[in-house]
């Protein structure tokens, strides 16, 4: 054996694949952003000329409420949980504001809705944190409770409720220069709080710690029940905020308004790299995940496929993206 050994070609390509793999695993945003760019290009190919600033504005309007909803999933999934009650809480919040805005003003309506949401989140948090009920079941049960109570409220206030308040409509549907939706005024601070909170605060780190290794977290002194209670209250408050924006965006106040967005919110978090097992992920990826889902949705509708085919493709794409993500990063 003399001289410098020549690396065989196969080994070189293996090393290259390893580098890609490490790159994707360390910077998971890159393949997501690449996918987003590819989808935008596909949209342009499918309907030439569609990719304009106005189109981007429409997409952003649709994406903002979903992004807020997906934040709830991101936060709960970091601890290995999930929040299936976000649809019911969001719809309830939107409805409460609509029903109160005529009589007592939008501001009071918002406060009442936030308090109601916080109570729901508190109950959920106690169930998950103290009684150790599986989050899937707990949030499922809470969604039934919130839906039933919201329906009951609807019956009580049927005579006095009005449509969606103009303030919410302005936030949800209007755009600045027809491009930037005003809902960004709500979204940007919320997103900044979540991004910074997850990365810079001790609480954010403890969320990840609980999901990653609950035993180690407990032995390190983290009081998981307190953390979880706060978590689900925060998740419920975020869901309420999303509900306000949804209500403004669709100009509808209904107790089942947001139900169809619950599964997409989970899908967005998963696509964005948050592991449903807990311990891994972040909100940045989720935001890109939401954009990806919104562009896919717009692409499929611009291709003119009927709703049923769009649903089939939507589900298949989610599986494909999640599978590719697992393959590329080598983790679940």
């Amino acid at each position, binding site marked *: 054996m003399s001289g410098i050994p020549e690396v065989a070609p196969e080994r070189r390509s293996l090393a290259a694949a390893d580098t890609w793999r490490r790159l994707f695993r360390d910077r998971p945003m890159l393949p997501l952003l690449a996918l987003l760019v590819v989808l935008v290009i596909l949209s342009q190919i499918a309907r030439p000329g569609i990719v304009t600033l106005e189109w981007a504005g429409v997409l952003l309007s649709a994406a903002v409420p979903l992004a807020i909803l997906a934040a709830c999933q991101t936060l709960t999934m970091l601890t290995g949980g*999930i929040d*299936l009650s976000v649809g019911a809480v969001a719809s309830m919040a939107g409805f409460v504001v609509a029903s109160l805005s005529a009589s007592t003003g939008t501001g009071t309506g918002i406060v009442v809705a936030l308090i109601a949401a916080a109570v729901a989140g508190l109950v959920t948090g106690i*169930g998950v944190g103290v*009684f*150790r*009920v*599986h989050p*899937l*079941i*707990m949030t*499922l*049960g*809470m*969604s*039934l*409770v919130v*839906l*039933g*109570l919201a*329906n*009951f409220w609807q*019956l009580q206030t049927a005579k006095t409720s009005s449509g969606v308040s103009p303030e919410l409509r302005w936030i949800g549907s209007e755009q600045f220069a027809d491009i930037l939706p005003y809902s960004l005024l709500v979204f940007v601070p919320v997103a900044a709080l979540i991004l910074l909170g997850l990365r810079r605060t001790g609480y954010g780190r403890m969320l990840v710690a609980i999901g990653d290794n609950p035993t180690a977290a407990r032995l390190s002194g983290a009081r998981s029940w307190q953390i979880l209670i706060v978590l689900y209250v925060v998740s419920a408050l975020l869901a309420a905020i999303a509900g306000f924006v949804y209500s403004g965006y669709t100009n509808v106040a209904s107790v089942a308004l947001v139900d169809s967005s619950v*599964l997409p919110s*989970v*899908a967005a978090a*998963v696509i964005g790299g948050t*592991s*449903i*097992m807990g311990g891994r992920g972040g909100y940045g990826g989720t935001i890109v995940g939401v954009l990806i889902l919104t562009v896919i949705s717009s692409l499929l509708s611009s291709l003119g496929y*009927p*709703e*049923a*085919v*769009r*649903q*089939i*493709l*939507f*589900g*298949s794409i*989610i*599986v494909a993206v*999640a*599978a590719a993500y*697992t*393959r590329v990063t080598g983790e*679940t």
Partner: protein
Amino acid sequence: MSATAAPVARSAGRAAVIASAARRNAWMLGLLALLAGLLVFTKIIQPNYGVTGVQGLAISVLPLALAAVAQAIVVLSGGIDLSIGSMMALINVVAAVLMDGQSEQFGVVVVFGSLLLGLLLGAINGGLIVITRVPDIVVTLAMSFVWAGFALVVLPTPGGGSARWLMSIVGGSLGTEWIPKAAVVLIVIVGVIWIPVRRSRLGLSLYATGSHPLAAFRSGVSIGRTKVLAYALMGLFAALAGLSLTASTGIGTPVPGPYTLMSVAAVVLGGVSLAGGRGGVFGPIVAVMILQLIRTDMTFLDVNNNLATVLQGLILIGVVMIGSLVQIRRSRA
């Protein structure tokens, strides 16, 4: 052992056996007691509750009970399936469309075909989970979109028809008027399909995979194959549930009902651990009956429908909290 000590030891031993059996099946016994209590309660608040009540209960419970069995099989093996409702809708509309206007004999073919389709759909779910290694919640969530989409493609609006013999299987009573056919169908289906599986090697592998996948793997259980088979079995029961919808409604409805989430609720209430490996199929069936009976009682008591929903949610949460508490107490002892 002296002659007097032996009988005492025997009866003490027998008591211990009964006690340990009671403890192991505590959850199931609790459920049965709750069901019995509810039946008594129902009779008290509605003295007319008799044959028609039991009939109605059996028919309305059949689809959800089969869905709960399907979900239980998957959860026992350590997974979960959030696409059961969509699968039921798809099988329902496929059967309704194929049976519409055809002969009764062709209906038999359709039923068999639907069962095979269910096996296939379930196997696809399981196969995707095993091959892609993506968590089951994500895969089945996405597949719920896919199956629901196919259901809409097959039948955009409710319609179709059903063979008359299929409808007559679940309607009415068998023998005495107290035994609803739907209940007999449920017992026969579960007995014929699940009990042999449960006792077979597949059943053992199923429980092992759910209980401790690594230990099962090391003991030679083929985890991948077991999971795919578990999901295929789930698909079979989901197909049966979808067919029961066709049989009881006589048409096909492409929009999935609340069966997915209700089946998860029934499974948890039925004493099956979401972590897998613990529980059985009869607990969820009893849980379904309890849930439906509560709903019926609410109607009898003239309780607002929405408050009934609230109560259902609260009961679900309450029961699970109590169960969790018991488990925590037991593990700490």
